[in-house]
């Protein structure tokens, strides 16, 4: 009996080791690239740490500074939320709309697919600079055209009221990624369901609401969740747009103004860089990184929860 028990234990240990060996790539990856940075970030958020001298415990000082004294935090948070709600929603609607139009096109579909996808491949810095040129309120062709037909000429990236809509236009221009995903899912909707709906006298809207949407809802949820996460990390475009529009690229004695104009293009990732890498305030930067982490988790959790009823089921 004792021999069997020892043998069984030995076998189970071997099994556990084998399972661990199979799991080890994931375990190592999660530990090194997720757990360690996360725990470090939490640790540093309670420390004064400039990267040169050893960290010193400061309790909640960094948290108090970021939430009550750091003048850029709340504008950046408001901007990030604006972009998450408005820009992500518009990108999903626009991507789906373009996808639906192109799937209906009988001739030249390849050309339109390419034309709408290509902007997505443009490097973000180059694309943003091009938009800053096109939307220049003084010399840009867009305002010239608007002016010539008697329409108002917005300040775009130079106007705090128009800078985020201008960034949204830039994001809609690069809609190619979502368009391709939506097209794939739209082409996957069974045609017989549309035929049955048509025979039942369903209108265009009813066919979309009761046939198309239930079939593509997992893709819509995917687009929203990934869009929210990407927008939480939105950095390059607002930074470049702000720099180009402000005209202050940086020089001797010049102070760069974050979030030009009037902090309207500030986003939370810019603050992580500003505090952590420009002011050597790793503690403050860690607090903002944790805020971003919590926000991403909350948004994703809410969307997944709400989306579970939205997802199509097999039955």
């Amino acid at each position, binding site marked *: 009996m004792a021999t069997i028990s020892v043998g069984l234990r030995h076998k189970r240990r071997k099994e556990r080791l084998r399972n661990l060996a199979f799991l080890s790539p994931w375990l190592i990856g999660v*530990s090194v690239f997720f*757990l*360690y940075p996360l*725990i*470090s970030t939490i*640790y*540093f958020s309670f420390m004064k*740490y*400039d*990267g*040169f*001298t*050893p*960290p010193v415990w400061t309790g909640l*000082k*960094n948290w108090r*500074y970021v939430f009550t*004294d*750091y*003048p850029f935090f709340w504008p950046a948070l408001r901007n990030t939320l604006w972009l998450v709600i408005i820009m992500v929603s518009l990108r999903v609607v626009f991507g789906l709309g373009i996808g639906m139009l192109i799937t209906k096109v009988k001739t030249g579909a390849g050309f339109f697919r390419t034309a709408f996808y290509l902007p997505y491949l443009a490097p973000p810095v180059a694309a943003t600079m091009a938009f800053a040129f096109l939307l*220049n*309120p*003084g*010399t840009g062709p867009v305002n010239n055209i608007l002016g010539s037909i008697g329409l108002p000429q917005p*300040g775009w990236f*130079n106007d705090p009221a128009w800078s985020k809509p201008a960034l949204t236009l830039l994001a809609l221009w690069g809609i190619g990624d979502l368009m391709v995903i939506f097209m794939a899912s739209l082409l996957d909707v069974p045609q017989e369901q549309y035929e049955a709906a048509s025979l039942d006298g369903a209108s265009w809207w009813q066919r979309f609401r009761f046939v198309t949407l239930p079939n593509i809802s997992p893709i819509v949820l995917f687009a929203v969740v990934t869009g929210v996460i990407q927008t939480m990390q939105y950095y390059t475009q607002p930074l470049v747009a702000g720099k180009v*529009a*402000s*005209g*202050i*690229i*940086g*020089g*001797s*004695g*010049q*102070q760069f*103004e*974050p979030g*030009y104009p*009037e902090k309207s293009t500030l986003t939370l990732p810019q603050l992580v860089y500003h505090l952590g*890498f*420009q*002011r*050597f*305030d790793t503690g*403050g930067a860690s607090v903002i990184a944790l805020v971003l982490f919590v926000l991403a988790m909350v948004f994703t959790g809410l969307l997944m929860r709400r989306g579970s009823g939205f997802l199509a089921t097999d039955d």
Partner: protein
Amino acid sequence: MRRVHKAVIASAAIALLGTACTGTSSAPPASDDATKETTITFWHGWSAPSEAAAITANVKSFEAKFPNIKVKVVGNINDDKIKQALRAGGPSAPDVVSSFTTDNVGTFCTSNVFADLKPFLDKSGVDLDKTFPKPLQDYTQFQGKRCTLPLLNDAYGLYYNKDAFKAAGIAEPPKTLSEFDAIAKKLTKPKGDGYAQLGFMPNFHGYESTATHFAAQWNPTYFTPEGKSNLAADPAFGKMLTWQSNLVKELGGFAKLEKYRATFGDEWGAKNPFHTGQVAMSIDGEWRLGMAKEAGVKFDIGVAPFPVPDEQADSYGKGYLSGTIIGIANTSQKQNAAWELVKYMTTDTEGVVNFSNGIHNVPSTLDALKSPNLKIDEKFKVFLEIAQHPKSSTTPASPNGGAYQLTLQDFGYAFESGKQTDLAAGLAKADAQIDKDIAQAK
């Protein structure tokens, strides 16, 4: 379940141990032998071909004097890259670093990222007072700790379009701000909802038209002796902001000027608005002379000190000073060899003069300023005089770099646009913000 707990606790402990081990970089003793064969790495920020050629020539003349020390030069480096490299350390990190941002000296000195140069200066017998002008000594140290030295100097003055002056019947550049305002208005030619020519761009986003550059004409005191922000208490800031916002109104208003500003080309390129004639006057550094020449500007350029407030007319000739700084990385294992390069570049009269000639900057040593080998024309001489004017000043170093300037400028944007009208309350609020930011940095 207990195993899961154990695993989590173990992970946390490892992570904390790992993090606790970071950032403890300590200064290596300067024990290297600078007379032996060695190679040091020098990072700088210059990128234009003419500037890169000048710095290469300067380094070559150093290597000729110190044949045992080879210098690996890396250009086009900005402060963000410097900070990360010095933070990371290691064999690829630079030994000698120069930066255009004097504002960061406070951060560099307090964080010990740059080595204390006092032992090196003492060893070499360099007398700072006999070597560098006082303002340059000030902006290269922080609270008594000298971690950098000045490497050339920038002086700001008034550039004006002589052809535009002649066409408007103006004979002399303005000396006081009331004269300046009148000339700026006279030179301004409205066209539609813009301008055919603007006398001067006063808006704080107008390139070098910054709050700190203007404020230097009032010789402000940014901090109290206790290190507290002094914006509301020193009338200089209120006077500067009042003058600037009045000029904004007189030249057409904030919105109109901002729209016109959006038509300007790149400050550092050929389409700079002064080059193109879009503005007839501008505040700028001495480098603009060389840039305007390279851009092929057709009109005759005039230079003069920037005008002073009427009540300080006797201090005409002063201006804002800034410059490039140079230091030794605290993590460098070759600090003695690095010091030889720093000493040569900052104190060797011939080296400083040649570099100044090559790069069109103001020399940073007293001897170089008087050197007969300095290639100066009448225009460049104006900047040399501004640099040596006893009332010329700069912005002080602070523990968090230029954050306080950003706060002042931020209020300036709100005040010039009319979004904030209460000057005293705005300056007091800016003071409070600056003090909070400094407290966070300490």
